[in-house]
């Protein structure tokens, strides 16, 4: 997962076709054709709706572009974001990038493996372990 400082996000003035989706919006209702990037929002880090939005976009709707986490993005939720289908996270301004990388790498369900299938790797542990 790519981690961005909030300043890098603010100056990311590419000519991409970007859609910002409110976290109560239904991903099925937007047109994905020609969209390069979808920004999903965490108004508070404890509001988990964007995890389901990301799952639906990535897995259900097969969106191949970038899914970017914005808003109250903290280091301790990055692994959940990655597993739900986000590939870029814009860290809240006060978050430490080095800590973020370390915390992300050592997340259980990430470092040692995970129990359940997710948006990235849909097979649960019991399937992969049995092979």
């Amino acid at each position, binding site marked *: 997962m790519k981690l961005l400082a909030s300043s890098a996000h603010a100056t990311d003035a590419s000519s991409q076709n970007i859609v910002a989706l409110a976290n109560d919006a239904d991903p099925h209702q937007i047109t994905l054709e020609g969209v390069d990037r979808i920004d999903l929002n965490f108004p508070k*880090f404890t509001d*988990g709706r964007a995890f389901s939005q990301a799952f639906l976009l990535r897995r259900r709707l097969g969106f191949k572009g970038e899914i970017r986490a914005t808003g109250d993005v903290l280091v301790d939720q990055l692994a959940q974001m990655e597993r739900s289908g986000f590939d870029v996270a814009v860290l809240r301004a006060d978050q430490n990038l080095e800590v973020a990388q370390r915390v992300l790498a050592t997340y*259980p*369900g990430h470092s040692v493996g*995970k129990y359940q299938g997710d948006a990235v790797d849909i097979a649960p542990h*019991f399937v992969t372990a049995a092979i």
Partner: protein
Amino acid sequence: MYHYTEFDRQFVQARADQYRDQLTRWQAGQLPEDEFRPLRLQNGWYVQRYAPMLRVAVPYGELSSAQVRVLATIARDYDQPDAALIEGAQATQDKLGPVLLKNGGSAHTKLSSGYAHFTTRQNLQYNWIPLSKSADVMDLLASVDMHGIQTSGNCIRNITSDERAGIAVDEIADPRPFGEIMRQWSTLHPEFAFLPRKFKIAISGAKEDRAAIGWHDVGLQIVKNDAGELGFKVLVGGGMGRTPIIGSVIREFLPWMQIMNYLEAVVRVYNRYGRRDNIYKARIKILVKAEGQKYFDAVEAEFKQIIEHDGAPHTITQAEYDRVAACFVAPTLGSAPTDVTPITTEEEAAYSRWLQQNVAAHQNPALRAVTLSFKRLGQAPGDATADQLNIAADLADRFSAGEVRVSHEQNLLLPWVHAEALPALWRAATQAGFAKANIHLLTDMIACPGGDFCALANARSLPIAEAITERYQDLDELHDIGEIDLHISGCINSCGHHHSGHIGVLGVDKDGKEWYSVSLGGSDGTVLSGPSQAGKAVGPSFSAAEVPDVIEAILNTYRQQREGRETFIATLRRVGAEPFKAAANGARFSAARKDTAEA
């Protein structure tokens, strides 16, 4: 019991390591309190009225004696506050005053340490472990394949079941393999870590519902269809709290291998549409109540997508079911015990009462299921000291293949006891103080920790429980009253399940004082209690001192009104609540004084 694989062990240890890192960052000021709180909660660490509280997960209530011994070690070595902390807490609680008894006695708050508490969700709690030692405790738990993962927070909580799972005579299929497979599915599920509110699942595999499935966010009942295939009846949207609601059937029959595909749909729709604007309206029951069929349709549509589009990725394979189920085959028991000293004439009366109340039939006719009572005078319901936990572990080793179960009624059950060993077990349990023959009787009451510990509580539960226990010490009287569910909660969060008590007591706060609302006619869904339903309040709330008298007045009314050996709840259902209400309200001190004045 489920045997942890190397992967399961690494996972739990990685979780303990992760928690230690988070704690260290919090201690260093790098992680603000508001951002640490949800992380520690999802590891079982609360901060309560006076001290942190740790809730340890006991999946479907099953523990090995080795685990119980580590739980005892934690009680002995870590559940130890500074003297100043507990003395200060005691002094503050003392200001609330005693609960006075009619016999001139009184029940007080008596704070102690060095013990664990069995909860109504089959978990275990400690009240005094300092946060600075919390990471060490997680390491200790991990050493015996235990943890506090998702015992709090707005996520999928510990999955509970029938304490007689795998041994009940009325069992359709053992729920434990499914409980374990679902435990693994729900553990650190990335999408469902921040739901609108907590999410509780209970599963029953027997004809009688002993897991209160109707009272859960999701209740699962194992059933067989006409073709003899195994599956689940799925209930959704039950819960206690401020708005008690019984779960609705969303699926009459779901093939067993689909359960996690289906739960993904249930929880995903809830995660997307559950209310987040008001904590009291955030449980799934409110969404199900508001949307009704629309919610059911959304779940079915999502389930269809998971099956057809996603390829049914969470389908339980036969190989996985077999692997997990193999952990739950009945243990090989040694030969019948050598100590078969017969029960003497002096012992006969007490022993037969114990057999009647505390010993249940077993799938294996040579065995029995024995409940150790943790409901006795001098200790709060469900409390066990370090020594008592060690004794329970010894009893499990001697009499029950090293296994115990935590019941949601806050006792321990020994699941694998030779019928011939019952006299020896009874004597050992008597010596340990675990043989009170009161299981399912009045003093086998459920009570939450209440205002003596909990930051949410409006009033204390434990002095009320003690006052009633003290009033009803006569076993003859208790047996005469018969089987009855008395449930006490210190606040509307309902951890003491007051809604489902035949008699429910709920702590409420009025003008900063402790008051108690008393309700009648609740049911947890057992055969005795009838279909799950919430009790109804008898009237305005009572003072603490009035509560024991109100309970007595209600029970006296039952004894006057009953026909033959009719139970309390049957009498209440037959004659209606009115005479009981009148008796309860007549026990108000103000009413009594008024009556005297008018007389």
